[in-house]
């Protein structure tokens, strides 16, 4: 028992009170302002669909793979999207090896929700907030607006395009997230890793053949260029930390801040201002106006992060373009290089 205690990471009483006192003067221990994000570095691996994201000290790797499977009975024309999270004690001594703890499961659920479901329009929610002030039921602001949002917005990853043969074969996309280092705010980093991996992933092209058109032929990548996934928008998860004194709010908490903060909330928004998901699991309560403030801050941040992901993709897309032209004719490859 003593050996295990020796490995745990501990925060001193001095640090706990210092982090709180410094936040009263809007200073964070790594020198950031309360609403500032750490530096994000997005790197890609050699294979399609692998990415590694560094958010300060936090590192997450995302791998996307696909397989042809039978679809679910109630959704015969849609592909399947599943997310698996792996945490190892190398990332943080508090993680247990083997079975994933609460943290890993919650992380997977938040990212899954952002990618899978429809999103609400932020401006609808602001209107609803005004209505709610005049109504007695606190939940009444949610219901009238939900139905309008469904018909207008779309999911992040288009699962209908993954259908090959309705009822028989669809693509099952599997996203594996490996947590390499926990420096705080795993959800945001894992989300960016999942998005980056999805954007660079290429699935093999397949066509229907055989006598009755019921056989699926999967073309190898050397014969036919693999296809990208259809991603309509990028849902970016932004995590907020709440501290009890004077309801102080910080974005992107580090490991130390997470140990001290009273509550956390993750909002998944995209650059268009749509809200994809909100997760607040336990922790201290926050007033409604703070949640609205968080949503507006998150929308502002999401635009910046989306731009960073797209810029990181730019180099990889050049590589894909080179690869495509090489396949068609060897000569085209030379001209593209000259242009570069």
């Amino acid at each position, binding site marked *: 028992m*003593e050996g295990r205690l*020796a490995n745990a990471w501990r925060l*001193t009483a*001095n640090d706990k009170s210092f982090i709180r006192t410094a936040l009263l003067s809007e200073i964070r221990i790594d020198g950031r302002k309360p609403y500032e994000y750490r530096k994000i570095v997005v790197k890609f691996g050699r294979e399609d669909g692998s990415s590694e994201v560094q958010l300060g000290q936090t590192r997450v790797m995302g791998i996307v793979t696909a397989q042809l499977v039978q679809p679910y009975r109630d959704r015969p024309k849609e592909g399947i999207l599943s997310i698996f999270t792996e945490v190892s004690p190398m990332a943080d001594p508090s993680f247990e090896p083997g079975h994933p703890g609460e943290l890993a499961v919650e992380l997977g659920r938040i990212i899954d929700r952002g990618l899978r479901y429809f999103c609400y329009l932020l401006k609808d929610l602001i209107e609803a907030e005004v209505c709610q002030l005049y109504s007695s039921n606190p939940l009444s602001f949610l219901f009238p607006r939900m139905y309008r949002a469904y018909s207008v917005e779309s999911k992040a990853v288009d699962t209908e395009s993954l259908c090959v043969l309705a009822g028989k074969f669809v693509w099952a996309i599997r996203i594996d997230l490996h947590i390499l280092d926990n420096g705080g705010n795993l959800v945001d980093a894992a989300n960016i890793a999942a998005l980056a991996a999805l954007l660079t992933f290429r699935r093999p092209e397949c066509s229907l053949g055989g006598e009755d058109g019921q056989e699926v032929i999967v073309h190898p990548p050397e014969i036919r260029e693999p296809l990208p996934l259809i991603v309509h928008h990028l849902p970016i998860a932004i995590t907020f930390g709440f501290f009890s004194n004077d309801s102080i709010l910080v974005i992107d908490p580090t490991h130390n801040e997470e140990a001290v903060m009273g509550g956390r909330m993750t909002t998944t928004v995209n650059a268009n201002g749509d809200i994809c998901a909100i997760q607040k699991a336990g922790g201290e309560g926050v007033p409604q106006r703070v949640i609205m403030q968080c949503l507006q801050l998150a929308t502002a941040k999401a635009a910046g992060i989306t731009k960073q992901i797209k810029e990181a993709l730019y180099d990889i897309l050049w590589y894909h373009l080179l690869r495509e032209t090489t396949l068609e004719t060897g000569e085209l490859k030379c001209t593209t290089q000259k242009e570069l």
Partner: protein
Amino acid sequence: MEKKQSGSPPSLIDSTVVPGDVVLDLSSMTNQTIMLGGGLRQDCDAISVMKAGTLRFSKPNKYWVESSQKRYTPCVEDTVLGIVVDSKADNFLIDIKGPVLAFLPVLAFEGGTRRNIPKFEVGTLLYLRVVKANFGMNPELSCTDASGKAAEFGPLKDGYMFETSTGLSRKLLSSPTCPVLEALGKKLSFEIAVGLNGRVWVNAATPDTIVVVANAIMNSESLSGAQQIIMVEHLLKNIQ
């Protein structure tokens, strides 16, 4: 032929060595007593390296290998910063970033008797001295110096503690003063306690001074002296 001080050409002192390197050949040095520190082993007539690091020599005859790690191996007479984990009848259990927890006897304080045992809460930061550190046993600590006086040991109040590698803590404690501490000291006033186990505690009047000092020290690990001074100037310009 003139013999070099190391006794084996070329001299490996102050250069990086890896396990397996032979640094001294005893057959060429007769009637000398050599003292070997950590990281070196004697194989008949050859002294070979066991741990990767930098070979150091101090007059008249001490050799050792210095390396920097995140984990700390307790050594006697080291001053360390420990966090209280638990308190038992006879000892406090302290975490000093070593392989096992260390014991601090409840009487190891200046004027300590059974009647005035201090009460430390879990999470208190203490500045301590290592008294016993044998392999396989829990190290023993003390809050007094060798003669029994308090001498700055004991709990540290307020401030902020952060973790570094053992190499950086040694650099911070070396004399002449480390360039980053000198550059910071010229402009800011702060108090600092460095533990050889890779923990540093900083205290100052305002939170932003503490944050600047902590970040400057954390960034200075891989920089040379001149680079450290430039880095500190840059940081100070940004906040003023």
